[in-house]
Protein backbone atom coordinates (compact mmCIF):
# COMPACT_ATOMS: atom_id res chain seq x y z
CA UNK A 1 0.00 0.00 0.00
CA UNK A 2 0.96 3.62 -0.16
CA UNK A 3 2.70 4.04 -3.50
CA UNK A 4 3.27 7.71 -2.62
CA UNK A 5 6.80 8.01 -1.34
CA UNK A 6 7.44 9.02 2.23
CA UNK A 7 9.26 12.15 1.03
CA UNK A 8 6.01 13.59 -0.35
CA UNK A 9 4.31 13.37 3.01
CA UNK A 10 7.29 15.02 4.67
CA UNK A 11 7.28 17.75 2.02
CA UNK A 12 3.61 18.43 2.72
CA UNK A 13 4.37 18.50 6.44
CA UNK A 14 7.16 21.05 5.85
CA UNK A 15 4.91 23.28 3.72
CA UNK A 16 2.13 23.21 6.33
CA UNK A 17 4.63 24.00 9.06
CA UNK A 18 5.87 27.09 7.24
CA UNK A 19 2.28 28.23 6.60
CA UNK A 20 1.81 28.05 10.36
CA UNK A 21 5.03 29.95 11.01
CA UNK A 22 3.96 32.65 8.56
CA UNK A 23 0.66 32.95 10.37
CA UNK A 24 2.30 33.42 13.74
CA UNK A 25 4.73 36.04 12.43
CA UNK A 26 2.43 38.07 10.24
CA UNK A 27 -1.04 38.14 11.83
CA UNK A 28 -1.90 40.49 14.69
CA UNK A 29 -5.01 38.84 16.13
CA UNK A 30 -3.96 36.49 18.94
CA UNK A 31 -6.69 33.97 18.14
CA UNK A 32 -5.48 33.63 14.56
CA UNK A 33 -1.95 33.24 15.92
CA UNK A 34 -3.27 30.42 18.06
CA UNK A 35 -4.84 28.73 15.07
CA UNK A 36 -1.56 29.00 13.20
CA UNK A 37 0.14 27.24 16.12
CA UNK A 38 -2.41 24.44 15.78
CA UNK A 39 -1.52 24.14 12.09
CA UNK A 40 2.15 23.77 13.05
CA UNK A 41 1.28 21.02 15.56
CA UNK A 42 -0.73 19.20 12.93
CA UNK A 43 2.08 19.41 10.40
CA UNK A 44 4.32 17.71 12.95
CA UNK A 45 1.61 15.09 13.55
CA UNK A 46 1.62 14.28 9.85
CA UNK A 47 5.39 13.82 9.91
CA UNK A 48 5.13 11.52 12.93
CA UNK A 49 2.46 9.35 11.32
CA UNK A 50 4.37 9.19 8.03
CA UNK A 51 7.50 8.00 9.81
CA UNK A 52 5.50 5.53 11.89
CA UNK A 53 4.22 4.00 8.67
CA UNK A 54 7.61 3.91 7.05
CA UNK A 55 9.44 2.40 10.02
CA UNK A 56 6.58 0.04 10.93
CA UNK A 57 6.53 1.23 14.53
CA UNK A 58 3.44 2.30 16.47
CA UNK A 59 5.48 4.66 18.62
CA UNK A 60 4.96 7.45 16.10
CA UNK A 61 1.21 7.17 16.47
CA UNK A 62 1.48 7.11 20.27
CA UNK A 63 3.44 10.35 19.97
CA UNK A 64 0.63 11.85 17.86
CA UNK A 65 -1.84 10.82 20.56
CA UNK A 66 0.16 12.75 23.15
CA UNK A 67 0.59 15.78 20.89
CA UNK A 68 -3.19 15.92 20.41
CA UNK A 69 -3.84 15.72 24.13
CA UNK A 70 -1.31 18.41 24.95
CA UNK A 71 -2.67 20.61 22.15
CA UNK A 72 -6.16 20.27 23.61
CA UNK A 73 -4.98 21.26 27.07
CA UNK A 74 -2.99 24.16 25.63
CA UNK A 75 -5.94 25.39 23.58
CA UNK A 76 -8.22 25.36 26.61
CA UNK A 77 -5.85 27.27 28.86
CA UNK A 78 -4.71 29.63 26.10
CA UNK A 79 -8.24 30.59 25.16
CA UNK A 80 -9.10 31.15 28.81
CA UNK A 81 -6.10 33.50 29.04
CA UNK A 82 -7.24 35.34 25.91
CA UNK A 83 -10.70 35.74 27.41
CA UNK A 84 -9.21 37.15 30.61
CA UNK A 85 -7.01 39.55 28.63
CA UNK A 86 -9.95 40.70 26.56
CA UNK A 87 -11.97 41.39 29.68
CA UNK A 88 -9.24 43.52 31.22
CA UNK A 89 -7.78 45.22 28.11
CA UNK A 90 -10.63 45.14 25.63
CA UNK A 91 -8.43 44.09 22.71
CA UNK A 92 -7.07 40.95 21.06
CA UNK A 93 -4.56 42.74 18.87
CA UNK A 94 -1.02 41.64 19.66
CA UNK A 95 0.32 45.10 18.78
CA UNK A 96 -1.67 46.64 21.61
CA UNK A 97 -0.79 44.10 24.32
CA UNK A 98 2.56 45.72 25.07
CA UNK A 99 2.48 46.69 28.75
CA UNK A 100 5.42 44.38 29.60
CA UNK A 101 7.63 45.96 26.93
CA UNK A 102 10.47 48.15 28.19
CA UNK B 1 -12.87 -4.62 -8.63
CA UNK B 2 -15.81 -3.02 -10.42
CA UNK B 3 -18.12 -5.56 -8.80
CA UNK B 4 -16.80 -4.53 -5.38
CA UNK B 5 -17.53 -0.90 -6.11
CA UNK B 6 -21.01 -1.77 -7.38
CA UNK B 7 -21.77 -3.81 -4.26
CA UNK B 8 -20.54 -1.03 -1.98
CA UNK B 9 -22.62 1.53 -3.87
CA UNK B 10 -25.69 -0.71 -3.65
CA UNK B 11 -25.27 -1.11 0.11
CA UNK B 12 -24.83 2.63 0.62
CA UNK B 13 -27.87 3.38 -1.53
CA UNK B 14 -29.95 0.83 0.37
CA UNK B 15 -29.15 2.21 3.79
CA UNK B 16 -29.72 5.81 2.68
CA UNK B 17 -33.09 4.91 1.19
CA UNK B 18 -34.03 2.98 4.33
CA UNK B 19 -33.08 5.96 6.49
CA UNK B 20 -35.04 8.43 4.39
CA UNK B 21 -38.12 6.19 4.42
CA UNK B 22 -37.99 5.82 8.19
CA UNK B 23 -37.41 9.56 8.49
CA UNK B 24 -40.53 10.19 6.44
CA UNK B 25 -42.38 7.74 8.67
CA UNK B 26 -40.98 9.61 11.68
CA UNK B 27 -42.37 12.89 10.38
CA UNK B 28 -45.72 11.21 9.85
CA UNK B 29 -45.62 9.76 13.38
CA UNK B 30 -44.77 13.21 14.70
CA UNK B 31 -47.94 14.72 13.25
CA UNK B 32 -50.30 11.83 13.92
CA UNK B 33 -49.03 10.58 17.28
CA UNK B 34 -48.92 14.14 18.64
CA UNK B 35 -52.47 14.55 17.41
CA UNK B 36 -53.62 11.37 19.14
CA UNK B 37 -51.87 12.35 22.36
CA UNK B 38 -53.48 15.79 22.23
CA UNK B 39 -56.93 14.39 21.41
CA UNK B 40 -57.26 15.86 17.94
CA UNK B 41 -57.04 14.45 14.42
CA UNK B 42 -53.84 15.98 13.09
CA UNK B 43 -52.65 16.59 9.56
CA UNK B 44 -55.75 16.03 7.49
CA UNK B 45 -56.17 19.24 5.51
CA UNK B 46 -54.25 18.43 2.35
CA UNK B 47 -55.82 15.92 -0.04
CA UNK B 48 -55.46 14.89 -3.66
CA UNK B 49 -58.90 14.59 -5.26
CA UNK B 50 -60.37 13.98 -1.85
CA UNK B 51 -57.87 11.23 -0.98
CA UNK B 52 -56.18 12.31 2.24
CA UNK B 53 -54.47 8.99 2.96
CA UNK B 54 -54.67 9.26 6.75
CA UNK B 55 -52.51 12.37 6.67
CA UNK B 56 -49.75 10.86 4.54
CA UNK B 57 -50.58 13.17 1.65
CA UNK B 58 -50.24 16.18 3.92
CA UNK B 59 -47.01 15.14 5.60
CA UNK B 60 -45.15 13.45 2.79
CA UNK B 61 -46.41 15.23 -0.32
CA UNK B 62 -47.72 18.68 0.57
CA UNK B 63 -45.13 19.62 3.22
CA UNK B 64 -41.99 18.92 1.19
CA UNK B 65 -43.42 20.68 -1.86
CA UNK B 66 -44.26 23.67 0.32
CA UNK B 67 -40.75 23.81 1.78
CA UNK B 68 -39.00 23.46 -1.54
CA UNK B 69 -41.02 26.15 -3.26
CA UNK B 70 -40.68 28.80 -0.58
CA UNK B 71 -38.41 31.77 -1.12
CA UNK B 72 -34.93 31.41 0.31
CA UNK B 73 -34.53 34.47 2.53
CA UNK B 74 -31.02 35.36 3.68
CA UNK B 75 -30.73 38.16 6.28
CA UNK B 76 -29.20 41.26 4.76
CA UNK B 77 -26.18 41.73 6.99
CA UNK B 78 -25.33 38.09 7.50
CA UNK B 79 -22.44 36.10 6.10
CA UNK B 80 -23.93 34.39 3.02
CA UNK B 81 -21.33 31.64 2.83
CA UNK B 82 -21.79 30.62 6.46
CA UNK B 83 -25.56 30.95 6.18
CA UNK B 84 -25.65 28.48 3.30
CA UNK B 85 -23.01 26.19 4.81
CA UNK B 86 -24.71 25.63 8.16
CA UNK B 87 -27.59 23.38 7.00
CA UNK B 88 -25.14 21.26 4.99
CA UNK B 89 -22.85 20.87 8.02
CA UNK B 90 -25.90 19.90 10.04
CA UNK B 91 -27.28 17.27 7.67
CA UNK B 92 -24.29 15.59 6.05
CA UNK B 93 -22.47 14.27 9.17
CA UNK B 94 -25.68 12.69 10.45
CA UNK B 95 -26.39 10.97 7.14
CA UNK B 96 -22.89 9.55 6.68
CA UNK B 97 -22.94 8.02 10.15
CA UNK B 98 -25.27 5.37 8.77
CA UNK B 99 -22.38 3.94 6.78
CA UNK B 100 -21.29 1.88 9.79
CA UNK B 101 -24.72 0.74 10.96
CA UNK B 102 -25.22 -2.93 10.05
CA UNK B 103 -28.65 -3.76 8.66
CA UNK B 104 -28.16 -7.51 8.23
CA UNK B 105 -25.69 -10.31 8.72
CA UNK B 106 -24.45 -11.58 5.37
CA UNK B 107 -25.96 -12.11 1.98
CA UNK B 108 -24.61 -14.82 -0.32
CA UNK B 109 -24.84 -13.46 -3.85
CA UNK B 110 -23.32 -15.39 -6.73
CA UNK B 111 -20.72 -17.11 -4.59
CA UNK B 112 -19.71 -13.92 -2.78
CA UNK B 113 -20.43 -13.35 0.87
CA UNK B 114 -21.49 -9.73 1.21
CA UNK B 115 -21.36 -8.18 4.66
CA UNK B 116 -24.55 -6.11 5.04
CA UNK B 117 -22.87 -3.00 6.36
CA UNK B 118 -22.00 -0.12 4.05
CA UNK B 119 -18.49 0.47 5.43
CA UNK B 120 -16.55 -2.09 7.43
CA UNK B 121 -14.47 0.02 9.75
CA UNK B 122 -12.54 -1.55 12.60
CA UNK B 123 -13.13 1.67 14.55
CA UNK B 124 -16.88 1.79 13.81
CA UNK B 125 -18.20 3.26 17.02
CA UNK B 126 -15.54 5.98 17.13
CA UNK B 127 -16.55 7.03 13.63
CA UNK B 128 -20.08 7.55 14.96
CA UNK B 129 -18.75 9.75 17.76
CA UNK B 130 -16.61 11.71 15.27
CA UNK B 131 -19.56 12.48 12.99
CA UNK B 132 -21.76 13.41 15.94
CA UNK B 133 -19.13 15.89 17.11
CA UNK B 134 -19.04 17.42 13.63
CA UNK B 135 -22.76 18.07 13.87
CA UNK B 136 -22.09 20.87 16.36
CA UNK B 137 -20.83 23.11 13.54
CA UNK B 138 -24.20 23.31 11.85
CA UNK B 139 -25.80 24.66 15.01
CA UNK B 140 -23.11 27.13 15.98
CA UNK B 141 -22.72 28.51 12.45
CA UNK B 142 -26.48 28.80 11.95
CA UNK B 143 -26.72 30.83 15.13
CA UNK B 144 -23.81 33.09 14.18
CA UNK B 145 -24.57 33.54 10.50
CA UNK B 146 -28.13 34.63 11.10
CA UNK B 147 -26.85 37.86 12.66
CA UNK B 148 -29.74 38.02 15.10
CA UNK B 149 -29.80 37.99 18.88
CA UNK B 150 -32.21 35.12 19.33
CA UNK B 151 -30.51 32.91 16.77
CA UNK B 152 -27.13 33.47 18.38
CA UNK B 153 -28.52 32.62 21.79
CA UNK B 154 -30.13 29.46 20.43
CA UNK B 155 -26.94 28.54 18.61
CA UNK B 156 -24.65 28.96 21.62
CA UNK B 157 -27.06 27.12 23.90
CA UNK B 158 -27.51 24.35 21.36
CA UNK B 159 -23.83 23.76 20.77
CA UNK B 160 -23.01 23.90 24.50
CA UNK B 161 -25.72 21.31 25.09
CA UNK B 162 -24.43 19.11 22.27
CA UNK B 163 -20.83 19.07 23.42
CA UNK B 164 -21.89 18.37 27.01
CA UNK B 165 -24.02 15.36 26.13
CA UNK B 166 -21.46 14.03 23.62
CA UNK B 167 -19.28 13.22 26.61
CA UNK B 168 -21.98 11.24 28.41
CA UNK B 169 -22.76 9.44 25.13
CA UNK B 170 -19.12 8.49 24.61
CA UNK B 171 -18.75 7.21 28.16
CA UNK B 172 -21.93 5.14 27.87
CA UNK B 173 -20.43 3.57 24.77
CA UNK B 174 -17.28 2.58 26.67
CA UNK B 175 -19.33 0.14 28.75
CA UNK B 176 -20.60 -1.52 25.57
CA UNK B 177 -17.11 -1.64 24.07
CA UNK B 178 -15.81 -3.29 27.24
CA UNK B 179 -18.58 -5.86 27.14
CA UNK B 180 -18.15 -6.84 23.50
CA UNK B 181 -14.39 -6.28 23.28
CA UNK B 182 -14.70 -4.69 19.84
CA UNK B 183 -15.36 -1.30 18.28
CA UNK B 184 -17.00 -2.69 15.14
CA UNK B 185 -20.81 -2.45 15.16
CA UNK B 186 -21.27 -5.54 12.99
CA UNK B 187 -19.22 -7.64 15.42
CA UNK B 188 -21.33 -6.33 18.27
CA UNK B 189 -24.53 -7.23 16.46
CA UNK B 190 -23.22 -10.70 15.72
CA UNK B 191 -22.14 -11.21 19.33
CA UNK B 192 -25.71 -10.59 20.43
CA UNK B 193 -26.85 -13.75 18.70
CA UNK B 194 -25.51 -16.06 21.40
CA UNK B 195 -28.01 -17.56 23.80
CA UNK B 196 -27.68 -17.25 27.56
CA UNK B 197 -28.60 -20.39 29.43
CA UNK B 198 -29.74 -21.95 26.17
CA UNK B 199 -32.82 -19.80 25.61
CA UNK B 200 -32.28 -16.07 26.28
CA UNK B 201 -30.83 -14.01 23.41
CA UNK B 202 -27.85 -12.14 24.83
CA UNK B 203 -28.90 -8.64 23.78
CA UNK B 204 -26.93 -5.64 25.01
CA UNK B 205 -29.70 -4.41 27.30
CA UNK B 206 -29.07 -7.42 29.56
CA UNK B 207 -25.39 -6.52 29.90
CA UNK B 208 -25.69 -2.74 30.02
CA UNK B 209 -29.10 -1.53 31.24
CA UNK B 210 -27.71 1.67 32.75
CA UNK B 211 -25.66 2.23 29.62
CA UNK B 212 -28.84 2.02 27.58
CA UNK B 213 -30.59 4.65 29.70
CA UNK B 214 -27.62 7.00 29.58
CA UNK B 215 -27.15 6.53 25.85
CA UNK B 216 -30.84 7.04 25.07
CA UNK B 217 -31.00 10.22 27.18
CA UNK B 218 -27.78 11.58 25.73
CA UNK B 219 -28.96 10.72 22.22
CA UNK B 220 -32.23 12.59 22.65
CA UNK B 221 -30.28 15.53 24.07
CA UNK B 222 -27.86 15.45 21.11
CA UNK B 223 -30.67 15.66 18.61
CA UNK B 224 -32.13 18.55 20.63
CA UNK B 225 -35.57 17.06 20.93
CA UNK B 226 -37.98 17.69 23.76
CA UNK B 227 -37.37 17.42 26.67
CA UNK B 228 -34.01 18.93 25.64
CA UNK B 229 -35.06 21.33 22.94
CA UNK B 230 -34.33 24.69 24.59
CA UNK B 231 -32.04 25.75 21.69
CA UNK B 232 -35.03 25.44 19.41
CA UNK B 233 -37.79 26.04 21.98
CA UNK B 234 -40.65 26.79 19.68
CA UNK B 235 -42.53 28.82 22.23
CA UNK B 236 -39.61 30.85 23.54
CA UNK B 237 -36.95 31.56 20.95
CA UNK B 238 -39.24 31.37 17.91
CA UNK B 239 -37.13 28.74 16.20
CA UNK B 240 -33.87 29.31 18.01
CA UNK B 241 -30.84 28.86 15.85
CA UNK B 242 -32.72 28.34 12.61
CA UNK B 243 -35.13 31.27 12.95
CA UNK B 244 -33.68 33.06 9.94
CA UNK B 245 -33.91 30.06 7.64
CA UNK B 246 -36.71 29.49 5.17
CA UNK B 247 -37.49 27.19 2.30
CA UNK B 248 -35.07 24.41 1.38
CA UNK B 249 -32.54 25.28 4.11
CA UNK B 250 -35.23 25.04 6.76
CA UNK B 251 -36.20 21.69 5.28
CA UNK B 252 -32.57 20.54 5.63
CA UNK B 253 -32.57 21.45 9.32
CA UNK B 254 -35.84 19.62 9.90
CA UNK B 255 -34.51 16.65 7.97
CA UNK B 256 -31.35 16.57 10.08
CA UNK B 257 -33.54 16.60 13.20
CA UNK B 258 -35.46 13.53 12.08
CA UNK B 259 -32.45 11.73 10.61
CA UNK B 260 -30.81 12.13 14.04
CA UNK B 261 -33.92 10.58 15.59
CA UNK B 262 -33.52 7.61 13.24
CA UNK B 263 -29.78 7.51 13.99
CA UNK B 264 -30.33 7.32 17.75
CA UNK B 265 -32.95 4.61 17.15
CA UNK B 266 -30.58 2.65 14.87
CA UNK B 267 -27.68 2.90 17.32
CA UNK B 268 -29.83 1.88 20.27
CA UNK B 269 -31.10 -1.18 18.39
CA UNK B 270 -27.63 -2.17 17.19
CA UNK B 271 -25.92 -1.75 20.55
CA UNK B 272 -28.60 -2.78 23.01
CA UNK B 273 -31.32 -4.69 21.23
CA UNK B 274 -29.48 -7.05 18.92
CA UNK B 275 -29.51 -4.93 15.78
CA UNK B 276 -30.71 -7.17 12.99
CA UNK B 277 -30.88 -10.25 15.21
CA UNK B 278 -34.09 -12.25 15.19
CA UNK B 279 -34.17 -14.49 18.27
CA UNK B 280 -33.01 -18.01 17.45
CA UNK B 281 -32.26 -17.18 13.79
CA UNK B 282 -28.82 -18.25 12.54
CA UNK B 283 -27.39 -18.07 9.03
CA UNK B 284 -29.04 -21.25 7.93
CA UNK B 285 -32.43 -21.01 9.63
CA UNK B 286 -34.17 -21.09 12.97
CA UNK B 287 -32.56 -23.07 15.80
CA UNK B 288 -35.24 -23.19 18.48
CA UNK B 289 -34.28 -24.13 22.03
CA UNK B 290 -35.29 -27.70 22.54
CA UNK B 291 -33.66 -28.76 19.29
CA UNK B 292 -36.25 -27.96 16.60
CA UNK B 293 -34.75 -26.54 13.42
CA UNK B 294 -36.28 -24.74 10.48
CA UNK B 295 -33.98 -24.37 7.49
CA UNK B 296 -34.22 -21.22 5.40
CA UNK B 297 -32.39 -20.06 2.25
CA UNK B 298 -29.77 -17.40 2.79
CA UNK B 299 -31.80 -14.67 1.08
CA UNK B 300 -34.78 -15.54 3.32
CA UNK B 301 -32.61 -15.14 6.40
CA UNK B 302 -31.30 -11.79 5.08
CA UNK B 303 -34.80 -10.50 4.43
CA UNK B 304 -35.91 -11.52 7.92
CA UNK B 305 -32.91 -9.78 9.45
CA UNK B 306 -33.38 -6.56 7.49
CA UNK B 307 -37.07 -6.53 8.39
CA UNK B 308 -36.27 -7.08 12.05
CA UNK B 309 -33.80 -4.17 11.96
CA UNK B 310 -36.33 -1.90 10.28
CA UNK B 311 -39.08 -2.82 12.75
CA UNK B 312 -36.86 -2.15 15.75
CA UNK B 313 -35.70 1.19 14.33
CA UNK B 314 -39.30 2.22 13.66
CA UNK B 315 -40.23 1.22 17.22
CA UNK B 316 -37.53 3.39 18.74
CA UNK B 317 -38.38 6.30 16.43
CA UNK B 318 -41.98 6.04 17.61
CA UNK B 319 -40.74 5.92 21.22
CA UNK B 320 -38.80 9.16 20.77
CA UNK B 321 -41.85 10.84 19.22
CA UNK B 322 -44.03 9.77 22.15
CA UNK B 323 -41.38 11.02 24.62
CA UNK B 324 -41.40 14.34 22.81
CA UNK B 325 -45.11 14.87 23.23
CA UNK B 326 -45.29 13.61 26.81
CA UNK B 327 -42.53 15.36 28.73
CA UNK B 328 -42.21 19.09 29.47
CA UNK B 329 -39.09 20.95 28.49
CA UNK B 330 -36.02 21.19 30.72
CA UNK B 331 -34.87 24.63 31.77
CA UNK B 332 -31.39 25.35 30.52
CA UNK B 333 -29.62 25.16 33.87
CA UNK B 334 -31.48 21.95 34.71
CA UNK B 335 -30.40 20.56 31.34
CA UNK B 336 -26.72 21.35 31.91
CA UNK B 337 -26.85 20.11 35.48
CA UNK B 338 -28.32 16.81 34.29
CA UNK B 339 -25.57 16.45 31.72
CA UNK B 340 -22.57 17.32 33.86
CA UNK B 341 -23.65 16.41 37.39
CA UNK B 342 -26.03 13.57 36.58
CA UNK B 343 -25.20 11.60 33.45
CA UNK B 344 -21.43 12.08 33.51
CA UNK B 345 -20.80 10.62 37.02
CA UNK B 346 -23.34 7.88 36.32
CA UNK B 347 -21.60 6.99 33.08
CA UNK B 348 -18.19 6.93 34.81
CA UNK B 349 -19.61 4.65 37.50
CA UNK B 350 -21.05 2.45 34.75
CA UNK B 351 -17.61 2.16 33.14
CA UNK B 352 -16.07 1.23 36.47
CA UNK B 353 -18.66 -1.41 37.28
CA UNK B 354 -18.61 -2.83 33.74
CA UNK B 355 -14.83 -3.09 33.79
CA UNK B 356 -14.92 -4.90 37.14
CA UNK B 357 -17.58 -7.31 35.93
CA UNK B 358 -15.75 -8.02 32.68
CA UNK B 359 -12.60 -8.71 34.66
CA UNK B 360 -14.34 -11.01 37.14
CA UNK B 361 -16.94 -12.75 34.99
CA UNK B 362 -15.80 -12.19 31.43
CA UNK B 363 -17.51 -10.21 28.65
CA UNK B 364 -19.99 -11.36 26.02
Amino acid at each position, binding site marked *: *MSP*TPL*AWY*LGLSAVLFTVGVLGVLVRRNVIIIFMAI*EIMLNAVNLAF*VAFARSLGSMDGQVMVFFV*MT*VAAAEAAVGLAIILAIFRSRGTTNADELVSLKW | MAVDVAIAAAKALFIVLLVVQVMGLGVFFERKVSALIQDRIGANRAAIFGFAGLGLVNTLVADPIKFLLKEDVVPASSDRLLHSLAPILSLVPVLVTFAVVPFGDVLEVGGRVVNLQAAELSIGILYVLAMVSLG*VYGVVLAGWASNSRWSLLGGIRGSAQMISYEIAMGLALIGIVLTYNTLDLQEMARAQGTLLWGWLPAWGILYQPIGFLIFMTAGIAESKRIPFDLPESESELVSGYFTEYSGPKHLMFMMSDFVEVVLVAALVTTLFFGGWQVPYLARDGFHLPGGAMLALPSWGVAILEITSFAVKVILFTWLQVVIRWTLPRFRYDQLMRLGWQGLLPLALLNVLVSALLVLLVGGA
Partner: protein
Amino acid sequence: MSELLFLVLAVLTVTAATSVVAVANPVRSALGLVATLFLLSIFFVALDAQLVAVLQVIVYAGAIVVLFLFVIMLLNLQGERRVTGGMGLVAAATAGALALTAFLVTLLARAATAPAATLPPGFGETRALAERLFTAHLLAFELTSLLLLVAVVGAVALSRR
Protein backbone atom coordinates in the same frame (compact mmCIF):
# COMPACT_ATOMS: atom_id res chain seq x y z
CA MET C 1 -3.04 6.33 -2.01
CA SER C 2 -2.46 7.03 -5.68
CA GLU C 3 -0.16 9.92 -6.43
CA LEU C 4 -2.77 11.97 -8.26
CA LEU C 5 -5.16 11.75 -5.30
CA PHE C 6 -2.32 12.71 -2.96
CA LEU C 7 -1.50 15.79 -5.04
CA VAL C 8 -5.11 16.93 -5.20
CA LEU C 9 -5.61 16.52 -1.44
CA ALA C 10 -2.25 18.15 -0.68
CA VAL C 11 -3.15 21.21 -2.74
CA LEU C 12 -6.51 21.42 -0.95
CA THR C 13 -4.84 21.10 2.45
CA VAL C 14 -2.31 23.84 1.77
CA THR C 15 -5.08 26.09 0.41
CA ALA C 16 -7.17 25.51 3.53
CA ALA C 17 -4.18 26.18 5.81
CA THR C 18 -3.36 29.38 3.89
CA SER C 19 -6.96 30.49 4.23
CA VAL C 20 -6.61 30.19 8.00
CA VAL C 21 -3.75 32.68 8.08
CA ALA C 22 -4.79 34.90 5.18
CA VAL C 23 -8.52 35.56 5.65
CA ALA C 24 -9.70 38.60 7.62
CA ASN C 25 -12.88 37.09 9.11
CA PRO C 26 -11.94 34.93 12.13
CA VAL C 27 -14.97 32.63 11.75
CA ARG C 28 -13.90 31.78 8.20
CA SER C 29 -10.38 31.17 9.52
CA ALA C 30 -11.79 28.68 11.99
CA LEU C 31 -13.69 26.92 9.22
CA GLY C 32 -10.50 26.76 7.18
CA LEU C 33 -8.86 25.13 10.20
CA VAL C 34 -11.63 22.51 10.33
CA ALA C 35 -11.09 21.78 6.66
CA THR C 36 -7.32 21.43 7.17
CA LEU C 37 -7.77 19.06 10.09
CA PHE C 38 -10.30 16.95 8.23
CA LEU C 39 -8.07 16.68 5.17
CA LEU C 40 -5.13 15.70 7.37
CA SER C 41 -7.34 12.99 8.84
CA ILE C 42 -7.73 11.60 5.31
CA PHE C 43 -3.93 11.47 5.02
CA PHE C 44 -3.76 9.61 8.31
CA VAL C 45 -6.17 6.97 7.00
CA ALA C 46 -3.97 6.56 3.92
CA LEU C 47 -0.99 6.04 6.22
CA ASP C 48 -2.68 3.14 8.03
CA ALA C 49 -3.38 5.18 11.16
CA GLN C 50 -7.12 4.69 11.42
CA LEU C 51 -7.47 5.27 15.15
CA VAL C 52 -5.38 8.44 15.05
CA ALA C 53 -7.41 9.69 12.09
CA VAL C 54 -10.73 9.32 13.88
CA LEU C 55 -9.26 10.76 17.09
CA GLN C 56 -8.12 13.76 15.06
CA VAL C 57 -11.70 14.39 13.99
CA ILE C 58 -13.16 13.84 17.46
CA VAL C 59 -10.59 15.84 19.43
CA TYR C 60 -9.25 18.46 17.03
CA ALA C 61 -12.01 19.15 14.53
CA GLY C 62 -14.86 18.31 16.86
CA ALA C 63 -13.79 19.91 20.13
CA ILE C 64 -10.79 22.23 19.91
CA VAL C 65 -12.02 24.24 16.94
CA VAL C 66 -15.50 24.44 18.48
CA LEU C 67 -13.78 25.99 21.49
CA PHE C 68 -12.08 28.48 19.17
CA LEU C 69 -15.42 29.32 17.58
CA PHE C 70 -17.03 29.85 20.97
CA VAL C 71 -14.32 32.29 22.01
CA ILE C 72 -14.56 34.16 18.69
CA MET C 73 -18.31 34.49 19.13
CA LEU C 74 -18.07 35.45 22.81
CA LEU C 75 -15.61 38.20 21.97
CA ASN C 76 -17.72 39.09 18.95
CA LEU C 77 -14.70 39.41 16.67
CA GLN C 78 -15.90 40.60 13.33
CA GLY C 79 -12.92 41.03 11.08
CA GLU C 80 -9.98 43.33 11.37
CA ARG C 81 -9.26 46.30 9.20
CA ARG C 82 -5.52 46.02 9.49
CA VAL C 83 -4.98 42.29 9.21
CA THR C 84 -1.19 42.02 9.22
CA GLY C 85 1.60 44.12 10.70
CA GLY C 86 3.45 46.35 8.20
CA MET C 87 4.67 45.43 4.69
CA GLY C 88 8.26 45.17 5.89
CA LEU C 89 7.29 42.47 8.37
CA VAL C 90 5.29 40.57 5.76
CA ALA C 91 8.17 40.65 3.26
CA ALA C 92 10.73 39.53 5.83
CA ALA C 93 8.43 36.79 7.13
CA THR C 94 7.72 35.46 3.63
CA ALA C 95 11.40 35.37 2.79
CA GLY C 96 12.14 33.58 6.05
CA ALA C 97 9.28 31.14 5.43
CA LEU C 98 10.57 30.25 1.97
CA ALA C 99 14.04 29.68 3.36
CA LEU C 100 12.58 27.49 6.11
CA THR C 101 10.58 25.46 3.57
CA ALA C 102 13.66 24.89 1.47
CA PHE C 103 15.67 23.87 4.52
CA LEU C 104 13.02 21.48 5.88
CA VAL C 105 12.28 19.87 2.54
CA THR C 106 15.95 19.14 1.84
CA LEU C 107 16.50 17.83 5.33
CA LEU C 108 13.43 15.60 5.33
CA ALA C 109 14.01 14.32 1.80
CA ARG C 110 17.38 12.99 2.96
CA ALA C 111 15.75 11.40 6.01
CA ALA C 112 13.16 9.55 3.94
CA THR C 113 13.81 5.84 4.05
CA ALA C 114 12.05 3.26 1.90
CA PRO C 115 8.55 2.41 3.16
CA ALA C 116 8.36 -0.75 5.22
CA ALA C 117 7.53 -3.68 2.96
CA THR C 118 5.49 -5.55 5.52
CA LEU C 119 3.63 -4.06 8.41
CA PRO C 120 2.87 -6.02 11.55
CA PRO C 121 -0.75 -7.25 11.50
CA GLY C 122 -3.19 -4.88 13.14
CA PHE C 123 -0.94 -1.88 12.52
CA GLY C 124 -2.70 1.38 13.25
CA GLU C 125 -5.58 -0.25 15.05
CA THR C 126 -6.77 0.41 18.57
CA ARG C 127 -5.21 -2.70 20.05
CA ALA C 128 -1.72 -1.94 18.71
CA LEU C 129 -1.83 1.67 19.91
CA ALA C 130 -3.12 0.64 23.32
CA GLU C 131 -0.43 -2.00 23.65
CA ARG C 132 2.32 0.61 23.16
CA LEU C 133 0.55 3.26 25.18
CA PHE C 134 0.07 1.22 28.32
CA THR C 135 3.43 -0.55 28.38
CA ALA C 136 6.30 1.55 27.04
CA HIS C 137 4.66 4.97 27.46
CA LEU C 138 2.73 4.47 30.67
CA LEU C 139 4.50 7.26 32.54
CA ALA C 140 3.76 9.78 29.79
CA PHE C 141 0.14 8.64 29.81
CA GLU C 142 -0.23 9.24 33.53
CA LEU C 143 1.49 12.60 33.32
CA THR C 144 -0.81 13.60 30.46
CA SER C 145 -3.86 12.80 32.55
CA LEU C 146 -2.43 15.02 35.28
CA LEU C 147 -1.81 17.73 32.67
CA LEU C 148 -5.43 17.57 31.54
CA LEU C 149 -6.64 17.92 35.12
CA VAL C 150 -4.42 20.96 35.60
CA ALA C 151 -5.69 22.42 32.32
CA VAL C 152 -9.34 22.00 33.33
CA VAL C 153 -8.77 23.60 36.73
CA GLY C 154 -6.73 26.40 35.18
CA ALA C 155 -9.26 27.16 32.47
CA VAL C 156 -12.11 27.33 34.97
CA ALA C 157 -10.09 29.51 37.32
CA LEU C 158 -9.00 31.88 34.57
CA SER C 159 -12.45 32.38 33.11
CA ARG C 160 -14.12 33.37 36.37
CA ARG C 161 -14.95 37.03 36.56
